């Protein structure tokens, strides 16, 4: 089957690739475009390590076909930092020891960014709900929840 041309924005840069018809966005981003932040975990939509944002909405890269992303804007954890300056979520994850092995971290960060972009002042329950599709086998989730709440607080303080 012929490969299909796909164009989208990845972390603010226009990118054009040829993708197999059933190639997932995760494969295109990693193998085709060399952005290794989103990870391959279960391939079933269960673990959330491949979470990226498509037009600001959280999506699972492993269940999204690249050909369905024509003209969309894709964000991955690689696009969070501004040069040497970490995104508030990244800084909070570091500050609150929210990463151990780090495999889930890119997905957690993007799930959290989707939440804070939509709801800058979430409750703890809303944070738990936002990362409900992301599995972490190291931290027990508590440091991650604390980090996301801290990042929200810091962003709020910066806006005030």
């Amino acid at each position: 089957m012929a490969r299909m041309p796909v164009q989208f924005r990845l972390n603010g840069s226009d990118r054009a690739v040829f993708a197999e018809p059933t190639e997932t966005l995760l494969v295109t981003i990693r193998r085709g475009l060399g952005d290794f932040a989103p990870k391959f975990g279960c391939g079933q939509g269960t673990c959330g390590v491949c979470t990226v944002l498509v037009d600001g909405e959280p999506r699972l890269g492993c269940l999204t076909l690249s050909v369905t992303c024509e003209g969309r804007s894709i964000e991955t954890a690689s696009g969070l930092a501004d040069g040497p300056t970490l995104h508030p979520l990244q800084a909070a994850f570091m500050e609150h020891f929210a990463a151990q092995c780090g495999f889930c971290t890119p997905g957690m960060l993007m799930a959290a960014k989707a939440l804070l972009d939509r709801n800058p002042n979430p409750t703890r329950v809303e944070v738990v709900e936002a990362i409900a599709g992301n599995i972490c086998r190291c931290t027990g989730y508590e440091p991650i929840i604390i980090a996301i709440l801290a990042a929200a607080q810091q962003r709020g303080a910066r806006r005030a």
Partner: protein
Amino acid sequence: MPVNVRIVQGLQEAAEILASDRGAQLLGGGTLLVRAINEGFMTEGTLLRTLDPVLLAMNTGGARVELGAGVTMAMVLANRDLSYLHAPARGIGGPAVRTTATIGGNLFAATPYGDFTTALLALDAVVTLHAGFGGARVMPLEEMLANRARGGVGLVASVGFNRPAGADTFRFLKVARVRPKGVSVLSIAAHLPQNGGRISGARIAYGAMGPAPLRAKAVERVLEGRSLDAATIAAAKTAALEGTQPATDAIASEWYRREVLPVHLGRLLAGETS
């Protein structure tokens, strides 16, 4: 021959391809079909993607509700008019699944998935089908689910149902081992319209208690014309298992599902669930 992807503009064209190519399947959000490809269960055939805006249409303001089959769980959750459907929509995966999981896909999700379909079944929903080379036709969801196992149902364009009369008229419960997100042990939806303090036209539906979501008609008969008191709830619990065929899977055994169904039905009817 590997899996092919075809993008078509209109529903009718997609329906005609589905009718003529037994290996073709309609791609909704991809949470079922792309997963099947990833796991090697789907190695050949055609995925059809249609860009017809009809699939994303939502008519929710009036007494009659119409939802396109491509409407996602996130779109349902963002719509205040559909607050009675928020619990079943929120029960579908995490946020990244809900932005892609569609109503149409849920209608074809194998047990123990399909919780949203369970809710639609309790609302007496009908589906608008495009099958083959004819036009659209309307079919009760219950009939479509009965035909589902045989295949060749056609293309579901939309679902329609009457809005529940009151906030407490429609109730939904999903029982899962993992919170807030987990695959169903079972789910129960109850539509309990009342007339003069007595139930009139009750609809009870179960998820994960059979090969597809099913109506609990014995429970509905028990409830009809009675007030929702302790005696009625006890009678409903006694009739709860009639017609069920639960399966044993990684989530729960058939025995366990049978054991806990009456308990959860009783709690739902008594309003004891959160």
